[in-house]
């Protein structure tokens, strides 16, 4: 219940800017949508993709801010006097961070896909079958990116919270301590996961040909019917979407460890 109360507070605090950002991004994307056919081909999609990238940067910066805000406005006196565990406080902050940036990233990603497909459609050179195949591939690619995006966002959120609790603990050279405590775990986990990948058993490497993931067969058949021939399977031969479960386990364990370390620091070392 503590977590729910803390999350509700985070949501109430951020709801105005969250709602406003949702409306603004929708308006911006609608504007890009109206530029299809007026701007150079591909430009609306490119600019929309840059917005997704911009939100990625914003998420990285914001990951430090959720705790920093408490200290900025003296609210740390209230937060630290509550009879709750450190993981409840940080868990609520992480959950709200995920709500806010997860929603923005996934929605803007979807808007971008819609703009891209609308641009393709506007060329008027594709048959319905071919367009249907392309649309199916675009949405499959989008679906494929959802989990990794959320996973990376969670990692960025945990690293930001960890980094700020280390700053609170050491209390000196804030910028350098914050930077080091952000980069060092990344570097260590990256090295460790590379080492583990080298020795992990074969069944932990999961690979699927890209042509299957994107369902390019539908595009091939459409092209066949219209007289064009593209052998995607041949073209993308050797291109796989792969994941090493051992590496994922290392990163997941590392992030859980960092989260609990940050919670312990907040509960036992952080001061007002």
């Amino acid at each position, binding site marked *: 219940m503590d977590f729910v*109360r803390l999350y509700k507070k985070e949501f109430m605090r951020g709801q105005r800017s969250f709602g406003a950002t949702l409306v603004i991004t929708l308006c911006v994307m609608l504007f890009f949508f109206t530029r299809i056919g007026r701007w150079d081909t591909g430009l609306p999609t490119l600019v929309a993709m840059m917005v997704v990238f911009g939100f990625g940067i914003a998420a990285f910066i914001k990951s430090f801010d959720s705790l920093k805000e408490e200290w900025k406005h003296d609210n740390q*006196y209230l937060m630290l006097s509550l009879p709750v565990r450190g993981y409840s406080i940080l868990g609520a902050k992480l959950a709200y961070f995920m709500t806010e940036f997860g929603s923005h990233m996934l929605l803007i990603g979807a808007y971008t896909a819609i703009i891209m497909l609308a641009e393709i459609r506007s060329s008027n050179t594709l048959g319905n079958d071919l367009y249907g195949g392309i649309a199916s591939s675009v949405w499959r690619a989008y679906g494929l990116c959802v989990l990794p995006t959320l996973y990376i966002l969670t990692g960025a959120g945990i690293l930001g919270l960890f980094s700020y609790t280390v700053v609170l603990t050491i209390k000196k050279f804030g910028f350098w301590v914050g930077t080091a405590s952000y980069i060092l775990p990344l570097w260590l986990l990256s090295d460790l996961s590379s080492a583990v990948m080298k020795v992990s058993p074969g069944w932990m490497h999961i690979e699927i040909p890209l042509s299957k993931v994107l369902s390019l067969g539908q595009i091939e058949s459409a092209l066949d019917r219209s007289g064009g021939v593209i052998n995607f399977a041949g073209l993308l031969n050797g291109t796989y979407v792969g994941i090493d479960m051992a590496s994922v386990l290392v990163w997941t364990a590392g992030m859980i460890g960092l989260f609990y370390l940050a919670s312990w620091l907040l509960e036992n070392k952080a001061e007002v």
Partner: protein
Amino acid sequence: MGNILELQNVKKRYGTRWALNGVDLTLEEGEILGLLGPNGSGKSTMLKLIAGLIRPTEGSVSINGSRPGPEAKAHIAMLPDADHIYGWMTVKQAIEYVSGFYEDFDHEKADRFIEAMGLDTGMTVAHMSKGMSERLKLVLVMARNADLILLDEPLGGIDPTSRDKIISGIAKEYRWEHSAMIIATHLVRDIEPLFERVLFLKNGQGVLYGSADELRARYNGSIEDVFKEVFI
């Protein structure tokens, strides 16, 4: 009556400066302690240490037999010197938020206090005057039936009318036989009738401690007179 609070040789250092330098204190149920001293004497540091908002460099703090932590915090109500309530909250939201974390929060008491303090529950904290904000902080603390109540400069920056409201509010709603209270202040005159015991702090050390009545008799004056004698 049992001990609610025990401090043993508590020290706190910031950099090279000792904000608190070897303080011992025991507080029993029902006691109200006046923690007196000029600015920078270590009063706020001591309250923060007891509330678990900072950690001692040396020594130990014990609340109902356990060290400051989430469990002990459930029994402590603290009014800090800082404006710690979220500015975007209304009075009603602040009460709903804080009350959810404490089993000892008494909503009827909070309603009585809000009325006595003349607060509008729909008002946003960021739009409040200093006096109103202090009164809201007091409502959040005094509406709880906490074992230990810590008030850090409850009258700081408050006009005389609001001071009277705050002091009478404290006297009316304090659970005289079940709680202990520490009031840290350098504005002694208005609030000294509440004190049972008094601890004078100077440069982080306790320089005078005793029963308020005994000190008044010994120095033949009010606690404010004793304060002036000790610090001027």
